[in-house]
């Protein structure tokens, strides 16, 4: 409303350029335009739920122990007796490793998604609603973190902190919270200008309660919908770390590590790289369909 507010807003706009060239919902949107929105969303949900269930019940579903080695049965091709998708160079069952990979990658990504979502949203609301020096400080920190290429920063952090699931979650959280903070900050400022927040303030309702009961429920949909597409990126990051040997420590199964280990066998046993690659693509596709479908449904962006 005020010229001051306007300047602030356009100033904030400069921040919102995409920080990554990946557009996680692009694939989902392309498919939706061909097969219709409800079908696309349903397929996406089915894929995501299936992967989540496979990961959750990996112990029941996997025919073999994913880390059990058997050199006499190394590099079997798919369709071999007892090993539906064959075995790797150490004789480990590929199907079992894929299934356990779903557990490691999907749930690590989920944890690395929820933490920054919570942290960033809280920081963003406080900064956006309180304004003043808190806001200035938060925006400063966000700008510094955004200035780095994400993957490079992530690799550097994991390198410093040492590999492991906890490390990955901490590293992703340390970087990814800025996205949610920025989103929540902008939304909080937008809501702050609306009369119901003003009404709550003139009603003498405590600040924390205004943020929790009034602002949060009204802006959280956007963040959650964004989180779905963010998860595509996080899964790719986690598998990339695995591929680079910085992911879930061996011998635990991880799709990125599997691709990395399959590299010497590309010519003969190409399927060793193709199966985990396909797992990543299918997961990403499912999430992309859900992200795009939800964004469409809630009319976000």
């Amino acid at each position, binding site marked *: 409303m005020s010229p001051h507010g306007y300047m602030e807003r356009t100033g904030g706009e400069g921040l919102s350029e995409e920080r990554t060239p990946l557009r996680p919902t692009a694939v989902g949107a392309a498919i939706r335009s061909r097969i219709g929105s409800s079908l696309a969303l349903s397929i996406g949900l089915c894929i995501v739920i299936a992967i989540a269930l496979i990961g959750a019940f990996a112990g029941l579903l996997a025919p073999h122990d994913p880390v059990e080695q058997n050199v006499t049965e190394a590099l079997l091709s798919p369709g071999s007796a007892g090993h539906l998708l064959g075995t790797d160079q150490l004789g480990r069952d590929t199907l079992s490793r894929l299934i356990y990979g779903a557990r490691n990658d999907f749930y690590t990504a989920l944890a690395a998604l929820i933490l920054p979502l919570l942290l960033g949203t809280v920081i963003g609301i406080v900064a956006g609603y309180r304004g003043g020096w808190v806001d200035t400080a938060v925006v400063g920190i966000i700008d510094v973190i955004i200035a780095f290429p994400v993957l490079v920063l992530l690799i550097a952090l994991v390198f410093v902190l040492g590999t492991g699931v906890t490390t990955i979650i901490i590293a992703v959280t340390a970087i990814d919270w800025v996205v949610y903070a920025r989103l929540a900050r902008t939304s909080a400022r937008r809501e702050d*200008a609306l*009369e119901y927040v003003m009404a709550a303030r003139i009603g003498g309702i405590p600040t924390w309660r205004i943020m929790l009961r009034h602002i949060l429920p009204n802006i959280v949909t956007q963040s959650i919908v964004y989180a779905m597409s963010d998860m595509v990126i996080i899964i790719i990051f986690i598998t990339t770390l695995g591929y680079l040997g910085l992911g879930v420590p061996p011998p635990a199964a991880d799709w990125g590590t599997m691709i990395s280990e399959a590299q010497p066998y590309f010519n003969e046993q190409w399927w060793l790289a193709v199966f985990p690659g396909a797992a990543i693509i299918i997961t990403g596709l499912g999430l992309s369909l859900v992200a795009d479908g939800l964004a469409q449904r809630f009319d976000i962006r």
Partner: protein
Amino acid sequence: MSAVKSTVTRKEELLSVKDLGIEIAEAHKPVVTDVGLSVGRGEVVGVVGESGSGKSLTLKAIAGLLPRGVAVSKGEIEVDGIDVAQASPRELRRLRGGVVGMVFQEPMTALNPTMRIGAQIAESVRAHAKVSKKEAREKALELLAEMGFKDPRHSAQRFPHELSGGMRQRVVIAIALAGEPSLLLCDEPTTALDATVTMKVLDLILKLSAERNIGVILVSHDLGVAARVCDRLVVMYGGRMVEEGPAEAVLRRPRHPYTFALLRAVPTKDSSIDDLRAIPGAPPAAGEAGPGCPFVPRCEFAVEACTQRVDLVPVEAGRRSACRRQELFPDSVEATDV
């Protein structure tokens, strides 16, 4: 501002605004200048003027709710003995809701779309009284009943989008009253409503003012609304008060060319469409008004002296006007009825 007090007898003064100035903080552009207001218990004071006249900002300043970048630059606002500018955060919280309640223009945006209305009212009750959740809920139901809801228990479970505009506005009023304030600020409370609902909401505000013995400030650009409910009227233009007095007197015998022009722009049942006169030109942009009367560029009676500072001066019993050319308004001349 003139030192002469208005001669209208005050019933226990609730709000006193003196020499209020509001400016855009960074640019030091004044948007409201020299506004003085007072409201007593049981009194309904209307503030009228077109968009950009500073009426809403004045109201928000009283509530301590000025938007970012806009600040009170001068004068004092005293609500129930508390100076709003000097108040501690604790005093401000008691003030907000406890002493001052506010009703907004757009009832859809004034309600939280994600909360049931009963919970929203109860929340405001609990912000000011140490009561249990259950008691707050009961109080919310009582308030809904007082606002004319037939089945409060049922309505309390509704979300704002399930209600009609008039019902929403009544919920907003219920929330404003939840802390038992003694001053109700209404910012264009009927602008977003249908004509039929407008009357009901106005009647409700009038009834509450009388029954609860609270002071009401009603900001409106609609002279008809102001005429219907207000005891006194303040006319604002270009961030300044141009005229003040008992509502009926101001509307029947305006003592400022702006009020006069405003009345001529209002259609009435007796006037033909040809009698309507639009006011030529446009109001000054925020902060662009000079030191003199802000209406000069659009005023057909303006003389050289009008570009000099003009104070509000008493023109007759209980009335003040900021026009140098009072000779234009002999007491006998009557403007059109509203």
